[in-house]
């Protein structure tokens, strides 16, 4: 109840939430806020603190470091977790490439959320491991 079923349906197809039941997905839609960004708008700003943990529901975004575009993010991708977990400024801009709809969680709420949803935490951990692997390959 009190949730937007269309968003629940979309989340059910994301790897991040693949282990959750429908009531748990409904709870996530309740717990997260929903935000919208126009094309070209910055979601996260390099160097500015206190952003949030974002999950893309619809649209695409670009990771931009020092003004240079690096990678594209798509529905199901998430970002902002590193600055939330470390309490540090993001090292990149995230810019809406096309109109972008995201779910967002406040940085202070991320720890509680991940502990309450260990399967999501495991999926996030897998994601961080992939990023580390990519970086290691790049450095070597």
């Amino acid at each position, binding site marked *: 109840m009190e949730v937007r079923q269309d968003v629940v349906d979309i989340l059910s197809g994301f790897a991040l939430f693949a282990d959750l039941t429908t009531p748990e997905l409904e709870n996530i839609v309740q717990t997260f806020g929903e935000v919208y960004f126009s094309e070209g708008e910055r979601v996260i700003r390099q160097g500015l603190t206190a952003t949030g943990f974002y999950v893309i529901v619809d649209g695409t975004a670009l990771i931009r470091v020092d003004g240079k575009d690096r990678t594209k993010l798509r529905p199901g991708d998430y970002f902002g977790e590193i600055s939330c977990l470390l309490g540090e400024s993001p090292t990149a801009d995230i810019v809406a490439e096309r*109109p972008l709809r995201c779910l967002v969680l406040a940085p202070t709420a991320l720890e509680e959320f991940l502990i309450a949803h260990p399967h999501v935490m495991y999926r996030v951990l897998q994601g961080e491991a992939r990023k580390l692997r990519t970086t290691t390959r790049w450095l070597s």
Partner: protein
Amino acid sequence: MAQLTDPRFPPGAYPLVVVGSGPGALQLTYSLRRLGIEHAVVSQDQTPGGMFRKWPIFQRMLSWTKPFADQQRGSRAYERYDWNSMLADEQEHRAIMPSVMDGTSYFPSRPEMERCLATFAERTGLQIRHGCRWESTRVLDDKEFVLETTDGEYRTQNVVFAVGVAEPWRPSVLEVDGIQQYGDLRPVETYRDHRVFIVGKQNSGFEIASGLLPWARQIVLASPSPTQLSVATRSLVGVRARYVQPYEDWALAGGVIILDASIEGVERRGDGFTVRTKNPQEERSRIFEVDDVIAATGFTTPLRDLPKLGVATFGQSRLPAQTPFWESATVRGIFFAGTIMQGSQGLRKHGIPSNSGAVQGYRYNARVLARHLAETRFGVRPKRPKLQPDEVVPFLLREASKGPELWHQRSYLARVVSIDAGEGITDQGIQPLAYFVDDDKGVDGVAIALESNGREDPYPAVYVRLQGRVARERLLRPDPLLDFEGESYRRELSDALDPILDQALTRTVQ
């Protein structure tokens, strides 16, 4: 063009049309008039006041006005303590709210709020065409909006909708005959000795629970998310202290039940209802047999056919997505005022939203919007005061300590000073912080805002734009006395501004 001087704004063509007559529309039309911007104002209501003509349902505001505060009534700094008055340039039109309150509470009653708004409209001579209902919208030749109203057609290139976010919404599971909703409750005495199930744990749910505490046998408040309290979040996120009594009743086992649970179903049972709930962490459902079910499940924005015109919306409230200057993100020329402005979200630092959903926040947005419209649509550019280099630091710290815009709209509105080799140092006034940090074409300068992190006292945050880019922020320390004008703050801010002020000084000397 129609006769712009006609106080009744007959149907016709206008350079700008404002729809609504609540506080958001009143503040905007006042500010536009003071800038000399011709516009029409139409409203379906018969008198000014918007939702405060009938709500809050328990007749007492949630926003305070302190008749006695540490700043002189009517001064700009006093606005920090008066959340309800409209803003005015003229001394005699400021701080109207405390002058119409009876002194029994620093939360004005609903009739006092209505009187405050009507008094402001009357004394400042605002002109509104009342009883004129906006019904539909279309676009003519890709450049002009046509608003169909009960009085006829209004044509304009710029329209501001200030129609509130006050249409009660309920999920389909609550579409059951007999379920009541915020706004259509019965007199409280009819809940005498009843078991009442309230769906929703935001302020509206707790407001209803507070009102029914003396009457109901049992009150259950349920929704999936845990209750948050404003005193814990140190922001307007969460249930306000005025409505916390049911929470204490629950905490002390007085009979109120607060559940983190989904509603799986509601069925009629004779004169009452059966409600099934489920917590995602538990395997089993719970069953409640109650006399009344009340939906306090939020409100939506009555945008009528605007989404069909391409106005993008988001979230359960169907708020229109907006630019930092409250223009539709997807349809140029359509703006929003009043509580709808919360659709322009700003930086949301620490996850804390702006106060644009409340009068004390959006009244400042309205003034910024009026100036933005004047400058970008009408070529009217209000004069900006110049500053000397040694005035910048004390000026910014004074704004951080006493500027009501910064106090009420933290991490959202900022005082901006531009520093330009040719133009010198200029007070650019109040701007949306998101605009300042994201406007890569803007001149170099500094913005100061107040910020909260949900744990500490508020603190000033300084953003410096150098060579067209805001690369980082400088967060000053919080102060328990909320005074940022002392020597240590002057030193810290001077350090932060040295690079940019040095450049300006060098250029000035050369």
